[in-house]
């Protein structure tokens, strides 16, 4: 029976060829490590967000008068509603962590270098899209926390002369955060960002497949210590087949993701729900301790520290551009960061300042 189905498919879509091309004869470098599976973890994370997000969509009501109530109903009345909401909320935080870790490891291995600049750029866009998901989703439960955090974040563009005020009004659909803002953010969250995400992930993966995975620059026997000067598909003839070699590692890391997620849902269910996140939005009362989510804390604190708001935002835009276009700025031939003391120093300084800014922004 199975054989007949296989044969049927073989004639129509060329199953054997697909399997050979994508699984068994698709080779990955010998010295591959668990970090190479982080991208796949991000994909797993996204799949979870999509499934749980669609579940929430079935009961959620995107209207200022009903949003808070409907989310409370999801938590208390809908069978297992709490589970899907918890998975969506915890998942959004873990997903951002996974994407960030993925980028850091790519950076440390120098794998953004020629000819993989566009892979990095598309990854940067994916990070921005992921942050956009987090920011737009944050308003949806319509709590004090989400209302005021959104007020603060959408005020940031006002520092820009001329276009700033218009941009803020465009984001909010008016002068203040209101029900109009809620429906805008809802549209962004469930129907504008998802297709954008699909577009960039497709580009990202197509580029990776075209050029082939890079080896780590650390191993002695790896041939790829220097960036390529011309296009040469990295077929890794002496490497391992993707399936099962890397595939197993990806599955392992995916399971780890689930373990962390369920550990948080089970043992620290209030971790991502401070008190203000359980009180309905009140446009006439600002609670204390309003701050954005942890992944926006560092840029947020930086904005607060720079006395001139305009300068602060300009600085962030420049930093973002440097980050996205980094492969075009760093054209050094050496991939191994251990042999590049200055870059290593800069990296450590950036990491430490990010941690300090985050810790500072929390207070």
């Amino acid at each position, binding site marked *: 029976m199975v054989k007949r189905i296989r044969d049927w498919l073989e004639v129509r879509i060329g199953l054997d060829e697909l399997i050979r091309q994508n699984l068994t004869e698709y080779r990955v470098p010998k010295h591959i490590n668990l970090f190479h599976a982080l991208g796949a973890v991000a994909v797993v994370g996204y799949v979870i967000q999509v499934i749980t997000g669609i579940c929430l969509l079935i009961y959620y009501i995107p209207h200022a008068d009903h949003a808070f109530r409907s989310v409370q109903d999801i938590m208390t009345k809908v069978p297992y509603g709490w589970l899907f909401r918890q998975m969506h909320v915890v998942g959004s935080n873990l997903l951002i962590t996974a994407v960030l870790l993925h980028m850091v490891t790519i950076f440390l291995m120098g794998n953004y270098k020629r000819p993989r600049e566009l892979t990095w750029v598309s990854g940067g866009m994916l990070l921005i899209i992921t942050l956009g998901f987090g920011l737009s989703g944050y308003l949806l439960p319509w709590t004090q926390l989400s209302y*005021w955090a959104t*007020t*603060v974040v959408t*005020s*940031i563009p006002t520092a820009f002369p001329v276009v700033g005020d218009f941009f803020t*009004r*465009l984001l*909010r*659909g*008016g*002068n*203040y955060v209101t029900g*109009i803002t809620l429906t805008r953010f809802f549209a962004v969250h469930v129907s504008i960002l998802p297709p954008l995400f699909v577009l960039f992930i497709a580009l990202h993966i197509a580029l990776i497949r075209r050029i082939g995975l890079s080896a780590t620059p650390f191993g002695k026997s790896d041939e790829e210590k220097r960036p390529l000067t011309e296009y040469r598909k990295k077929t890794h003839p002496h490497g391992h087949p993707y399936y099962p070699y890397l595939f197993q590692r990806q599955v392992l890391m995916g399971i780890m993701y689930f373990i962390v997620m369920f550990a948080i849902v089970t043992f620290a269910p209030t971790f991502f729900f401070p008190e203000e996140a359980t009180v309905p939005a009140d446009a*006439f*009362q*600002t*609670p*204390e*301790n*309003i701050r954005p989510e942890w992944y926006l804390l560092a840029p947020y604190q930086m904005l*607060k520290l720079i*006395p001139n*708001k305009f300068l602060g935002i300009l600085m962030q835009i420049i930093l973002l551009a440097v980050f996205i276009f980094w492969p075009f700025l760093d054209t050094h031939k050496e991939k191994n960061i251990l042999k590049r003391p200055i870059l290593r120093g800069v990296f450590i300084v950036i990491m430490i300042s990010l941690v300090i800014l985050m810790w500072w922004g929390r207070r």
Partner: protein
Amino acid sequence: MRRRTFLRSLLAVCGTLSFASFAYPLLRFLAPPGDTDKEKKVTLAKKDIPVGTSRVVLFDQKPVIVINHQEKGFIALSKVCTHLGCLVEFNPATDILLCPCHAGTYDLEGNVLSGPPPRPLAKIPFKVEGEQLVIG
């Protein structure tokens, strides 16, 4: 003009036009709706705000705090912090308005005393008409 050049220009013009005829409505569609019922005056009775107390009223969609101060009489200030838009709280003991978000402080004139706010709080014009306070 050569036939091919002509066709190409025609295509460019038509393409631009049809794109613009879609882009312009889209832009208008997304732009925030204008403020319609602006500047409705708000009236409240003086006796509702005894000396030493304050009240919050809605004016032009935003909360305004009206303070009846012992020495300075009536004061009306927007509650919207000029930093990032949180709402300030009035502390009658110190005569200071404090923003809970990043601890910006203002005096009774709305001037910034400390913290990140770049501008003073907006002063809201009002008139005293007999026993009434007319805001706006």
